[in-house]
């Protein structure tokens, strides 16, 4: 259920000032002078993903984690963050920067393990493995490891897991993911709250037919429908464990009890946070995390430009600095990738987002028109604005390379032809007798949004469309295009998967039965084949078969339905100081992996 505003290219203009200095600016340089290493690194991160993400067994889930080569313990690491953390209660954590922090302080039933070879495995975190399914994927059993404790030394038991699940139904939990609750209640939307209106706080509990805890170390989930993505689900930070004895409800959001390798020493909202080692975290129980750094000193309000410039300078304490979430800002990207000394201090990888231009299927009912639009629309401008290959990759389909089982495909030739193919589009229109079809193109009214709209409008005019550009204010953009009866034909949006499975992309975005105001099916596509395929694939119990089926369905949508055209896969380039070791990009967190960092002595 994630969407991004960066999709709108809403780059905020810095203050205007006329620099009357000598004009040495410009001169972006030829692409031939660009850093070769950069391209290698970029393609490597893509290759790492080509392999499947597997569900780990007991052996894979056993701690301690594989040591990071050359790692030395100790030291303080400075962390430059843009946004302060609004939520620390696991049940309230959904957004990526809080999720990134959660990997250090919270633990759940499962997590992602990234090994030194770059392979991702879903492993048991508090649980001994990634989950044992039975009853065709409806029943999932987890056994807790020995020696897992909260920061005060209290052992974590099945009671805490049950509590953590049941409190998600309480009215004050409003910001976290709702998948688990919906699966248990077998409903959509927020109707799940009726299942346990007050959470566990007034003595009511979920019945054993849904969630049973036969002993202190066993938890069994009984879902009404098969849920084959359960191991991914429990790796979401939003389903981390909460201490049932110390649950302070709303106040827990400011002072949670840690279960991960670090705990919060102090937190000055909006200014700083200090994380110190959690003495009750036992490395032998954790197959994914490390505890090399003594202290993380996090400071907030560092815009991307600020953090990038500090880290580029690499002076003084910036040498031991890093940013968990800030990417290199697009204006500095050419400098960062152009200087090998700086570039070697970067990591790069994918974000979960895929940009697309939606075609409003309620208005554009003619397939030929949609096909012509899909062929004509150029994607180069959005690619450039995100920082070329360091911030984006031309998309061939709606499923991102960060999803399990990704297969590179470009059935419409969009990735191969980022300027669009106006001639081919015009031919389709001419053959169909649809020349001069009126297309109302809604775009977000920012400088960059306007610029992109010019390239699209120019290309569509060249292809023989009558383009009407309609600017929408950036703060209400998604509200306006989210209306089912909106009067626009094409508009941009972006969607990000919640876990690396297409089941968090295709069902929400392309299932015709979910069309509603503000639902993410912005194209209002309602295709019988897509709907039936979604039901079929969701019932598959073999993850590999499901992955293949999702990608086949993606190809069908891209070529046979065309409810939109994919533009780019979002990527990210991150920079760190020269004394920061163990820096590696984790595509599952879509950021640098905080659990592997160490300070070089």
């Amino acid at each position, binding site marked *: 259920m994630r969407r991004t505003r960066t999709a709108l290219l809403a*780059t905020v*203009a*810095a*203050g*205007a*000032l*006329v*620099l*009357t*200095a000598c*004009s*040495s*600016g*410009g*001169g*972006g*340089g*030829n*692409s031939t002078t*660009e850093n070769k290493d950069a391209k290698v690194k970029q393609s490597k991160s893509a290759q790492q993903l080509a392999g499947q993400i597997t569900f780990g067994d007991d052996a894979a889930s056993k701690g301690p984690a594989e040591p990071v080569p050359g790692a030395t313990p100790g030291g303080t690491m400075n962390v430059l963050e843009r946004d302060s953390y609004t939520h620390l209660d696991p049940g309230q954590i959904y957004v990526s920067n809080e999720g990134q922090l959660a990997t250090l302080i919270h633990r759940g039933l499962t997590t992602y393990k990234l090994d030194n070879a770059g392979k991702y495995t879903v492993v048991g975190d508090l649980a001994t493995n990634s989950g044992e399914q039975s009853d065709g994927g409806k029943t999932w059993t987890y056994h807790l490891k020995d020696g897992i404790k909260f920061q005060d030394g209290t052992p974590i038991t099945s009671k805490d897991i049950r509590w953590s699940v049941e409190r998600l139904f309480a009215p004050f939990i409003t910001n976290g993911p709702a998948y688990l609750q919906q699966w248990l209640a077998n409903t959509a939307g927020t109707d799940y709250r009726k299942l346990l209106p007050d959470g566990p706080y007034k003595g009511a509990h979920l019945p054993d037919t849904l969630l049973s805890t036969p002993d202190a170390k066993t938890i069994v989930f009984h879902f009404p429908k098969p849920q084959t993505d359960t191991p991914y689900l429990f790796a979401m930070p939003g389903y981390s464990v909460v201490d049932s004895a110390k649950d302070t409800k709303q106040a827990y959001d400011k002072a949670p009890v840690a279960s991960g390798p670090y705990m919060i020493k102090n937190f000055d909202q909006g200014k700083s946070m200090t994380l110190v080692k959690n003495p009750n975290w036992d490395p032998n129980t954790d197959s994914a995390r490390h505890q090399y750094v003594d202290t993380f000193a996090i400071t907030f309000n560092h815009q991307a430009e600020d953090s990038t410039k500090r880290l580029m300078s690499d002076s003084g304490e910036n040498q031991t600095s890093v940013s968990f979430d800030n990417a290199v800002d*697009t*204006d*500095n*990207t*050419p*400098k960062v990738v152009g200087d090998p000394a700086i570039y070697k201090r970067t990591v790069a990888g994918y974000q979960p987002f895929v940009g697309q231009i939606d075609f409003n299927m309620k208005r554009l009912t003619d397939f030929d028109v949609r096909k012509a639009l899909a062929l004509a629309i*150029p994607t*180069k*401008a959005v690619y*450039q*604005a995100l*920082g*070329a*290959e360091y911030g984006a990759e031309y998309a061939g389909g709606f499923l991102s390379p960060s999803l399990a089982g990704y297969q590179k495909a470009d059935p419409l030739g969009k990735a191969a032809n980022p*300027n669009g193919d106006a001639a081919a589009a015009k031919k389709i229109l001419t053959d169909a007798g649809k020349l001069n079809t*009126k297309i*109302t193109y809604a775009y977000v*009214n*920012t*400088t*960059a949004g*306007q*610029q992109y*709209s*010019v*390239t699209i*409008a*120019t290309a569509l005019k060249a292809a023989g469309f009558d*383009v*009407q*550009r*309609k*600017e929408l*204010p950036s703060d209400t953009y998604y509200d306006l295009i989210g209306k089912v009866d909106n*009067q*626009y034909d094409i508009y941009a949006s972006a969607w990000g998967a919640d876990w690396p499975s297409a089941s968090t992309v295709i069902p929400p975005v392309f299932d015709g039965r979910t069309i509603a105001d503000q639902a993410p099916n912005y194209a209002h596509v309602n295709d019988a084949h897509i709907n039936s395929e979604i039901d079929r694939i969701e019932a598959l119990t073999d993850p590999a078969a499901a992955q293949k089926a999702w990608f086949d369905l993606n190809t069908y949508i891209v070529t046979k339905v065309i409810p939109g055209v994919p533009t780019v896969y979002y990527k990210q380039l991150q920079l760190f100081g020269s004394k920061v070791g163990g820096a590696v990009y984790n595509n599952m967190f879509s950021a640098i992996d905080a659990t592997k960092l160490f300070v070089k002595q």
Partner: protein
Amino acid sequence: MTSSTETTLAGPPGEPGQIADSGTAAPAELAGRSPGQLMWQRFKRDRTGVISAYVVGFFFLVGIFAPVISKLYGKDPYTLYGTNEPGLLNDFGYPIAPNGGMSSRFWFGIEPNLGRDVFMQLVYGIRTSLSIAVAVTLAVTATAIVMGVTAGYVGGKTDYFIGRVTDLLMALPAQLFFVAVMPVVTAVFVSPVDETPTYLRVVALISVQWFLGWMGLARLLRGQVLSLREREFIEAARVTGASSWRIVRRELLPNLVTPILVQSTLMLPAFVTAEAGLSFLGVGLIEPTPDWGRMFARGAEVYQNDLTYMFFPGIAMVVFIVAFNLLGDSVRDAFDPKAAR
């Protein structure tokens, strides 16, 4: 009239023609010059003023003859040269050639990302901005004259009413008002499926600026009229039975030329910057209409990698505003040499 009578009386007897001939040289120098002519002579002696006038004139010529320049230069402000031709922009969308892609072909370089010609963008941007500013100035001046003179001359309840309206409008924060109203104005008149026509945006821009632009000058004129209407020559005109309309037109307005001219020359550059400011904030003219203000907005975003792109519109704007303000000062000095600088 009086001086010529005196000359005739005081002159020695003889042929009138001869007297006139011999006498013209000296007295004619002293006589027969309107305040306008005096002002013009003083203005011509002010070198700063003259240079500023040439600079300002140059900008207006550039604006007026933009299509001619485009034809001679062989490019237009809409073609996406950089997008259409490979080799002009790099992967990040910035010009490959140094100095923002300046070359004998693209004199001021090419725009980042879209790859349009900066020189043409600037010339047409000046045309857009100046025509809007001139229109606003004309509208504002006309309104201010009507409101100010009416209030001052009629007085009483009318004066009170106009005065309060002026107060009210002056209390509105102008910039905030523009930002809030512009989208509404465009939304009201256009069907949601059609593109907002450029002329409508222009009209809306002119209207909102006009609506909150006239009060200062109107107040100034009201004050002038208040002091003038008690003077003897107005009394005299009234006694002779002249209509109000005639008094305003023949007696008052000629005496108001100075503040009107001075104020409007100072207002025009302010409207140019206001229009640029609105475009900078994203409520002015939108792509693809070339616009001076939007060039800054874009320049502010790309200055780290392409400083040149901000350089040309920035310098042009600074030169224009400084020149126009100096011109306004010179005009004021020429009209009223006694005013202390």
